[in-house]
């Protein structure tokens, strides 16, 4: 059994009085991809936001390599070796590509120069755009900037909120390739994906969320072949 890098236990959170996530528990093992699927409004994005500290938890625990981070502000969690890529507004539109990447190394500025070189090597398309404002980039380029920013400090855990949202089919495939490549380098990834089949195909484990709770959990393979899941959430009949 590989080491658990991220463990969530009985986590509840929401906005004001509305509870969105209820008693969610899940674990992410080192080097693995876990894909969270489920219908709209199931609380998938809110779960990621809560883990990242953007939404305050009501109760429960979140541990990164054994260290409790639940309830800490996002700016502190940013130093825990976990990087989160939100679904929307995930780049600084007024800053250039290069400045965006530099912001990814905010907590350890000494590493910024090397890290930028590494990210440009990972996304060669970004290199010529380094002086362009992120707001003027295409959707796919922005997604690369967002991803690159998160990869700057070589996180152990990556939280991805719908990395394929709004991308063209070609870009979607590229994006999943990148996710797999990053994972191949040993980064554990917790990913929310609307594109459930594609998401589960590259994942090791899958979590099905419904109405704020974990409805089903298992290996990605078993979920892909489970008739319940395919009927309910994958939009296909087995």
């Amino acid at each position, binding site marked *: 059994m590989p080491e658990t890098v991220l463990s969530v236990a009985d986590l509840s959170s929401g906005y004001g009085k509305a509870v969105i996530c209820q008693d969610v528990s899940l674990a992410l093992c080192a080097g693995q991809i876990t894909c969270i699927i489920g219908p709209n409004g199931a609380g998938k994005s809110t779960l990621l936001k809560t883990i990242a500290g953007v939404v305050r938890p009501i109760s429960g625990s979140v541990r990164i390599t054994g260290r409790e981070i639940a309830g800490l502000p996002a*700016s*502190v969690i*940013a130093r825990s070796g976990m990087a989160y890529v939100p679904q929307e507004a995930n780049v600084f539109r*007024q800053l250039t590509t290069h400045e965006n990447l530099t*912001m*990814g190394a*905010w*907590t350890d500025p000494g590493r910024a120069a090397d890290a930028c070189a590494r990210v440009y090597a990972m996304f060669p398309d970004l290199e010529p755009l380094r002086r362009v404002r992120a707001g*003027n980039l295409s959707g796919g380029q922005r997604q690369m900037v967002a991803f690159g920013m998160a990869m700057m400090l070589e996180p152990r855990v990556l939280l991805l909120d719908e990395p394929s949202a709004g991308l063209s089919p070609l870009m979607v495939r590229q994006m999943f390739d990148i996710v797999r490549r990053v994972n191949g380098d040993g980064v554990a990834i917790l990913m929310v994906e609307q594109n459930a089949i594609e998401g589960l195909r590259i994942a090791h484990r899958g979590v099905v969320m419904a109405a704020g709770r974990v409805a089903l959990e298992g290996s990605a393979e078993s979920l892909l072949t489970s008739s319940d899941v395919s009927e309910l959430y994958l939009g296909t009949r087995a």
Partner: protein
Amino acid sequence: MSLQMIVNGLVNAALIAPPAMAFSLLFGILRFPNFAIGGYITVGAFAAYTLNVALGLPLPLAAAGAMAFTALVVWGAHVIVFRPMEGQSAITLLVVSIAVTLILENVIRLIYSADVRGFDIPLQRPWKVFGARITPEQVEIIVWSLVIGVMLHLLLAHTRIGRAMRAVADNPTLAAIRGVNAARVTAFTTALCGALFGLTGVFAGLDLVIEPLVGWNLTIPIFAAAILGGIGSPYGAILGAVLVGLAEEATILVLPSTYKIAVGFVIIAVLLLVRPQGLFGTAEIKK
């Protein structure tokens, strides 16, 4: 337009450019038009007056003291008044900021009365440049305004805190996700802007007069410059200040000079109606 009017217009511009940039920076982070800047400028003018006239310090030293004191006041107002009200609507905060200006203005009236004052500096003969008159103080204001513009640019574009200021203004949530402590950045921004408002108070005392309404009378031209430049864009604010400064002088050609302070309003109204994003507002176009 005569050379004299252009000179006067540039002096106006130099006076309102730094606070317009500061207003823009504050707006970027706090997201409401802060009417308290009038009170802050007045505080700066009177702080410098007290240090210069009552305590006999030379003006540059008094100006530095006034900047520090105003920075403290602005930061204090942020901590005591505005930060606890975070999340309230822009209008509520706007009403509160007017209240802050009224309080500061009247505290000063209480202490100093409404008399018109000036700094204790030797009267200098204006210089003549191609027939246009300009006082050495006005030259100083223009030079310092330029220096401040360059320094602010260097700060925003090439320093870590400057990048953080832009990042927080752009997307505070993402800035937090990347580890930026927004509270600290905001505190720095308020103090920096406070120092600029303080300096504006000193300049206003040099070029105009020192009285409790000095800041209020500058508020609208400053708003006009910042809105003209595309609110939230400090560089636009400089251009906006030049246009407002020249426009104020140009009005004198057609209207009595008593209407000068209305120019700002007219510019704001017309501009907001025609181009709500500002003249130089950043439209996102692919290059």
